Structures are given as structure tokens and as C-alpha cells.
């Protein structure tokens, strides 16, 4: 985390197609704001990967690449908090049902590490079901150390 006193608050919002290209776009957009917010290289890597993993979940598991469904991306920062919100229009995903990837019996699984990495790299992580359908995740990185 890095202290940030001189960077103006900023909000960016996009509606993205359910494609892997959107995953790259979201990562780039979030990183451009994060750079202006003053994060160092280590935090930028963590933010970028958390956004990428969240976008993959939205595009692949949420919207299932459906061309008629969009992913909403919101990136904003205040002097204290850098916030990313990613919402899909899918039928919902049981994140709680994802096995613990660190359990010995799951170590050699080829998937199921995305949520774990997001939680590891961000200071806060929340998810909620949207009405009428979809999942929204909120990622927060503290701009100033607590």
C-alpha cells in the first residue's frame, strides 16, 4: 500500500462484452486508474490479477460467453479506497461451493484458484446476487495504510 494525497478521486464505468478481450480491457482500464491513484508496481500486479480473475469469472462462469449479456465494470478511488465493482448477468455462481484450493486433496486440481487469489491480493472482497439475475463482486484496495 502507498500513501496517496495528491491524486484526484476518479470514477470510470464501462459495459463490456462477454469475451476474453473484455478481460484484457478491464484489466488495462483498472490499472490505468490504479496507476493514477499512486499504487506501486507490486500493488498494481495484485490489482490487475484480481480484476482479471473476477472478469474471467463474470465472462466464463457468469455470462458463459453469452453475446447478449454484458459485464459492468466500475472503477473508482477516493483518497482512502480503490474500489472495483464487476457485475455479470448470469444465473449466479455458487462461490461457496468452490473447494479450498490449499487443501492437500485439492492442490493438484487444474482450476478453482481464482477466488483464493482475489482474496489474497485485495484488502476487501464481497459478492452478492443481483436482481433479477447476476452476480456482483466488489474488490477494495486501501490507498492509505490502516
Amino acid at each position, binding site marked *: 500500500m502507498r500513501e496517496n494525497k495528491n491524486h484526484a478521486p476518479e470514477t470510470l464505468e464501462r459495459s463490456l462484452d462477454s469475451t476474453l478481450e473484455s478481460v484484457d480491457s478491464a484489466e488495462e482500464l483498472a490499472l490505468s486508474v490504479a496507476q493514477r491513484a499512486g499504487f506501486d508496481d507490486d500493488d498494481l500486479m495484485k490489482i490487475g490479477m484480481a480484476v482479471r480473475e473476477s472478469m474471467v469469472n463474470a465472462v*466464463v462462469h457468469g455470462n458463459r460467453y453469452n453475446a447478449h449479456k454484458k459485464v459492468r465494470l466500475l472503477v473508482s478511488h477516493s483518497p482512502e479506497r480503490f474500489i472495483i465493482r464487476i457485475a455479470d448477468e448470469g444465473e449466479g455462481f455458487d462461490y461457496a461451493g468452490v473447494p479450498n*484450493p490449499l487443501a492437500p486433496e485439492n492442490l493438484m486440481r*487444474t482450476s478453482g484458484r481464482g477466488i483464493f487469489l482475489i482474496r489474497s491480493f485485495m484488502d476487501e472482497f464481497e459478492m452478492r446476487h443481483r436482481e433479477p439475475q447476476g452476480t456482483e463482486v466488489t474488490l477494495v484496495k486501501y490507498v492509505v495504510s490502516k
Partner: protein
Amino acid sequence: MSVKLNTRQVGDVSVVDVAGRITLGEGSSALRDLIREMVGKGQKHILLNLGEVSYIDSSGIGELVSGFTTVTNSGGQLKLLNLNKRVKDLLQITKLYTVFDVHEDEAGAIRSFA
């Protein structure tokens, strides 16, 4: 830059120089396809040189695990070489660092295949 894979033979070890991003999509599937192709040709000793990998996501980590399992199940060995700090950190927090045989020196890695 998406992933670039270059294969060379050092003795009986197939060294794969991996460069770029190993992420969901082209990056991870290219690595998966190459490892399966090598195993299909009977290659038992595979060394992945990750020195030029700039980025790897959870899908890429999954492909490393998949490659390890594929090679091991065929009676071979897959080892990793030249992890940068980010890749090393990722393998450590996912508790996979000790699963893989990781080397920092190519000559030593080649010799370790017995």
C-alpha cells in the same frame, strides 16, 4: 504479448523456453497442447524455462499443474526453471512451490533428470 514457446533438446531433456503471458485462452492452451504433444512423442524429461514469463493467472497455474500431472502419469518428469519473483510468489501462496521441482540453474536442472 501472448505466450511464445520455443523447444530445444539438451541431451535427453526437452527444454521449453516460455515467454510472455500464460493466461486463460491462447496462452494456456498453447502450453497444454505442446506438453501433450511432447508426451505423445515419448518425451519423458521436460524442463519449462519460465524466465521470460511476464504474467501468469490462475488458468496458467492450472496448466502448469495439468502439465505436471500429464508428464508424471506418463512416467516422466516435468521441472521448472528460472521462476521470476511474481511466478514464485504465486506458486508459494498456492502451496504449489514444493510440488514442483524448481531450479535456478539450467545445467543443474538438466543434471537432475536421472
